[in-house]
Every structure is written in structure tokens, then in C-alpha cells.
């Protein structure tokens, strides 16, 4: 095989070969970077969607919604249902929630106000909220605790005021939560939100009930029981697991992201084609150089490694640029896709960035193999005659 000194010499030579052909190298790297940017960004969106909509084992959260209503403005349920739901076997906690969104359609910058009773919120979010923030929130009727994505996106901190959807609130603090639905939410007092939005119905109307069950295995059973209980009522309900609720609301977005994933695959194909094309053209114009190296004692293995190294360097550099650009774009833009009051956050992911670089390098390696074999098999004498 080859020793460490030869290997480092081959990397040096490959790197020189690329650096001394800056236009060709720059164009190929730019193409790979754009493709990997696309791949990583689509992958981040797609993993955000999966995180929010895939049914998870051990899921205990249900959402009770008005039957056949698909927007927080039209889903109206009497707050008095709370007691009925609480009495259904298997239910652990019930939180009446009033949701007001700044935009009901699919959008990237939506604020979701969640009006919840103070005691329910204090119970459910104690570990995610600093004691000072919780105290500030409990002590003011117009206080809001913000989800991390929303706070980062609007650059809000405790003590600020902000207005959205006609609601003006005081920022008591920011909660630390990984839950997708919390990301773009502003938690306010239920009575405050009901008061602010008299026009949306009477004071005792809520949008939905967030229910926790005692046992994940009973999720379906409890959901059926709740809907059965209100079936004959004036406001019948539809109860779903939280992930299913998000998935239903996000149908359009899921379809779009599915299509975007195809674009991501096209991006990967582009990386392969770009590198293969660059290396094939490059080697075709360097037959003489290959013969020179062979004359100087480079073996087939040396030559094949040289070609493959050039390909992998191209893919690696382009991949790193594209993945970093995607990571920082996502981190800076802080996108959350929100529709019908549910949110899908798109968080930056170091794992996806590393995966993107790895894919770029692996595809480049694959693209370099055939040209490497061709170069290593070249007849010395024929190369000089070309």
C-alpha cells in the first residue's frame, strides 16, 4: 500500500492542482455549495415537520377541537366543558386554551397567543420557566411568557412590550422548551385574552382543550370517550393526539415539504454530476500530466488516489460552505411554519450540517472513482502522444 509520507504528498498535489485552476475549482465548489445549501435547508424543514407531526411512542397529549373547524377563529368551545372532560376516566389534566393567531394561513412569522388559566400553566411549565419570570407573569394580568423561537425571532426579552393580532402584552420572560408547539407561542392569562377579544365570542369561550392522559396506551380510548360525551351537544368535538392534530392542520405544508425533499434529492444528484463532470473534463485535458507522473514512478494506486482526493476535496469544501451557509441562515432567520394555529419550528441542526458535508464528500468520492480508474489505467506512451 502507501505510506503516510506518500499519502500526505498526494493530498498536497491534489490541493495544488485545485488551487492553481481557480476558476474551474471555484465554479465547481460554488455549484456544490448551492446544492448542499438546498439539501441541508430542505432536510432541516423536513426534520422539523417530522418532529412535530410523527406520532411518538409514549405520547400523552390530546387536543380537543370543535368538530369540522380548522382554524382557531372558528373553533369555539364552551369553557364549561373543562369539568366534563376532567371527569372522563383516564384524563390526567385539562387545560382550556384560547388561541389567537396573527395570521390563520400558512405563514413563516406567526404569533400564537395561548390563553391558559394561571394555575394550569404554573403546573405544566414550572420546570421550563425561571422563578423570576414565573413570578412576573403571575403578578401581571397582561403578562406573556414567550416561546424561545418567537423571542429569538422578534428579539424580545423580559420587560419588553409587544403587539400582535391586536393584543398588546408585557413580556414577563422566555420559557425554555423543546416542544414544537411552544416555540412560537406567547402564553398569556386566559381571562386576559378572552377580555381582549370580546369580538371573538363571549367571555367564556375557548378554542381547544389540551388534555393529558394518565397512560399513553389509553390515548385513543380517552379521545373516543371525549368525542362521544359531546356528540349530542351544541358544540360537538373532535379529539386527536397532538401530533395528529398538527399533522392535520399542516397537510399542505407536509405536501410542500415532501416536494421540497425531491428538490433535495435533485441537489444530491447535482453534486454527483458536478463533480463527475469536473473530474472527467479535468482528467481528459491532463492525459499528458498523468503520463509524466507515471514516468516519474507514480503507480496506478498513487494516480487513482490523486484523482479521488481532488474529487473529495471539491466535495468537502463545497459541502462545508453550503452546510454552514444553511446552518447560519436557519439560525438567523429562525423560521417557524405556522398554519391554522399550529407551528412547525425549523431549528438549525449541527447533525444535518455534518450529514450534508458527509453526503457531499461521499458523492464526490463516488463521482471520482471511475475517472480515477480510467486515469490509473492510461498507457504512458499514449498519453504523451495525445
Amino acid at each position, binding site marked *: 500500500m502507501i*505510506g503516510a509520507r506518500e499519502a500526505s504528498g*498526494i493530498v498536497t498535489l491534489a490541493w495544488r492542482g485545485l488551487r492553481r485552476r481557480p476558476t474551474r475549482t471555484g465554479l465547481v465548489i460554488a455549484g456544490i455549495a448551492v446544492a448542499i445549501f438546498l439539501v441541508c435547508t430542505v432536510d432541516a424543514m423536513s426534520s422539523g415537520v417530522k418532529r412535530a407531526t410523527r406520532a411518538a411512542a409514549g405520547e400523552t397529549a390530546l387536543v380537543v377541537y370543535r368538530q369540522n373547524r380548522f382554524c382557531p377563529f372558528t373553533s369555539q368551545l364552551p369553557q364549561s366543558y373543562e369539568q366534563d372532560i376532567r371527569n372522563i376516566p383516564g384524563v390526567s389534566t385539562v387545560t382550556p386554551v384560547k388561541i389567537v393567531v396573527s395570521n390563520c394561513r400558512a405563514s413563516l412569522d406567526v404569533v400564537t397567543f395561548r390563553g391558559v388559566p394561571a394555575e394550569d400553566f404554573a403546573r405544566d411549565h414550572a420546570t421550563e420557566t425561571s422563578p423570576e419570570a414565573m413570578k412576573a407573569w403571575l403578578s401581571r394580568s397582561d403578562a406573556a411568557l414567550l416561546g424561545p423561537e418567537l423571542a429569538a425571532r422578534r428579539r424580545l426579552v423580559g420587560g419588553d412590550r409587544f403587539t400582535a393580532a391586536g393584543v398588546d402584552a408585557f413580556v414577563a420572560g422566555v420559557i425554555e422548551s423543546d416542544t414544537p408547539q411552544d416555540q412560537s407561542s406567547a402564553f398569556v392569562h386566559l381571562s386576559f385574552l378572552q377580555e381582549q377579544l370580546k369580538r371573538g365570542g363571549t367571555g367564556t369561550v375557548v378554542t381547544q382543550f389540551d388534555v393529558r392522559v394518565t397512560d399513553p396506551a389509553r390515548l385513543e380510548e380517552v379521545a373516543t370517550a371525549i368525542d362521544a360525551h359531546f356528540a349530542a351537544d351544541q358544540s360537538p368535538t373532535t379529539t386527536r393526539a397532538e401530533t395528529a392534530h398538527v399533522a392535520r392542520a399542516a397537510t399542505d405544508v407536509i405536501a410542500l415539504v415532501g416536494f421540497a425533499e425531491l428538490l433535495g434529492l435533485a441537489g444530491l444528484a447535482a453534486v454527483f454530476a458536478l463533480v463527475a463532470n469536473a473530474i472527467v473534463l479535468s482528467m481528459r485535458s491532463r492525459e499528458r500530466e498523468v*503520463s*509524466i*507522473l507515471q*514516468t*516519474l*514512478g507514480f503507480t496506478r494506486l498513487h494516480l487513482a488516489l490523486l484523482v479521488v482526493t481532488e474529487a473529495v476535496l471539491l466535495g468537502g469544501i463545497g459541502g462545508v460552505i453550503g452546510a454552514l451557509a444553511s446552518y447560519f441562515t436557519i439560525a438567523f432567520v429562525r423560521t417557524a411554519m405556522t398554519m391554522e394555529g399550529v407551528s412547525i419550528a425549523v431549528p438549525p441542526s449541527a447533525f444535518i450540517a455534518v450529514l450534508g458535508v458527509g453526503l457531499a464528500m461521499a458523492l464526490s468520492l463516488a463521482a471520482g472513482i471511475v475517472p480515477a480508474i480510467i486515469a490509473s489505467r492510461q498507457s*504512458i506512451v499514449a498519453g504523451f502522444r495525445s
Partner: protein
Amino acid sequence: MATVEPIIRCSSLEKHYERGGETVRVLEKLDLTITRGQFVALMGPSGSGKTTLLNLLAGIDRPTAGGLVVDGQDITTLSRAALAHWRARSVGYIFQLYHLVPVLTAYENVELPLYVHNISRRERHRRVCEALESVSISDRHAHYPSQLSGGQEQRVAIARAIVTQPSLLLADEPTGDLDRASAAGIMELLGRLHREHGQTIVMVTHDPATAVHAQRTVHLDKGRLVEPHGVAS
């Protein structure tokens, strides 16, 4: 002169090419012995097989038949990889058209063959500087081939050929593309390498004025060797 060991021994060497279903016999039943330390000029009309013979001696092409022992090695039996390793150690090749790698500087071109030798960076640097100095081109380390004159390019190519300290230096019309003054400089350089380091050189030329620098001249005609003025060794 004491018994001198041969560095090259060709016996009944043959090289044929197939071209359009027809066999072109470039070299036929060629016998040639060259002793270590000799400077041999190989002459002959264009198309007589000079480059072909040199390529066989360098191990960059394979004979169709016959024996070929170079530097103590029967190179007809070596595998491709073994032949490459052998070339790296034993042969320095100088081309008529220099064949420097255009995207590498003079220094890097000379460094090139050392990448397949297991030597340290420091040693590599020392050898490259020494080689460039011995071809009087020390002030052009960072120049690319396109920034050098033909004579300077050929000097860099010679430095690249001798930097590995090969047993055998092969040159294919090394002055064929140069003006008179540069050609004289190159011949002076080859002569000096031969005199001062006892370097074995086989040089193809069709210029009798160039051939006078050699100790011995062999003529190749229609694939056969003719030696006009006896043997110097």
C-alpha cells in the same frame, strides 16, 4: 579499462505495433550493451525507432519480445506496480518538449518525483535545492513553466530527472526544440553531469554537432543498430 559492468543489456529486442491490421516492426532483433558511466548518443533518421527504444529502456513501454536488463533488473518480467517503483529509483527521463506540469512552479516540478520516495520534507527540500542549483536555475524557484524560456524549462526538467539520483539518465532530443545558445548550455550541463558524477546518459539526437559530446554514438536504421566508428568502451 577494467571490466565494467553493463547497465543496459538488450538482447534480440523487438517492438511491433499493430496499425490497421498491419504489423509495424519498429525494432527488430536489436542487441545493445551499454556500460555504467557511458555517455551514448543514439542517432538515426526520423521514424527509425529512437523514441521507441528509449521508452523501452525507461520501462514506460514494453518490448514485444527479447531480453532487457537495466540496472541489474530484468524489467520485462516486472509487474506494472513493480515497474513503476523501479522507474522511480532507476530512471531519469528528459523529454524534447520538457513536459513540465504547467500548474506547478519550477521548484514543485522538481519536487514531484520525490513524493513517491519515502524521505522527509527537510530532505526533499535539500535535494530539490541542490538539483536546481546544479542546473543553474536557483533564482527561478517560484516561476511557472510559462514564465521560463525553453532553455530554462529544459534545465528544470533535467533537475527533475536527476533529483532522485537515478542510475540511468535518458534524454530524447533534449535540445531539439532549443535555439543554438540554449542547446549548447544544455549539452554543457549534460556533459558536466557525466564528467563530474559519472552519470550514465543515453541521449537521442539527430544533430551530429550534439552527438560529439557523447563518448559513443550508435545509429538506428530501420530497426537495426549500426555502430560506425567502433566502440569507445
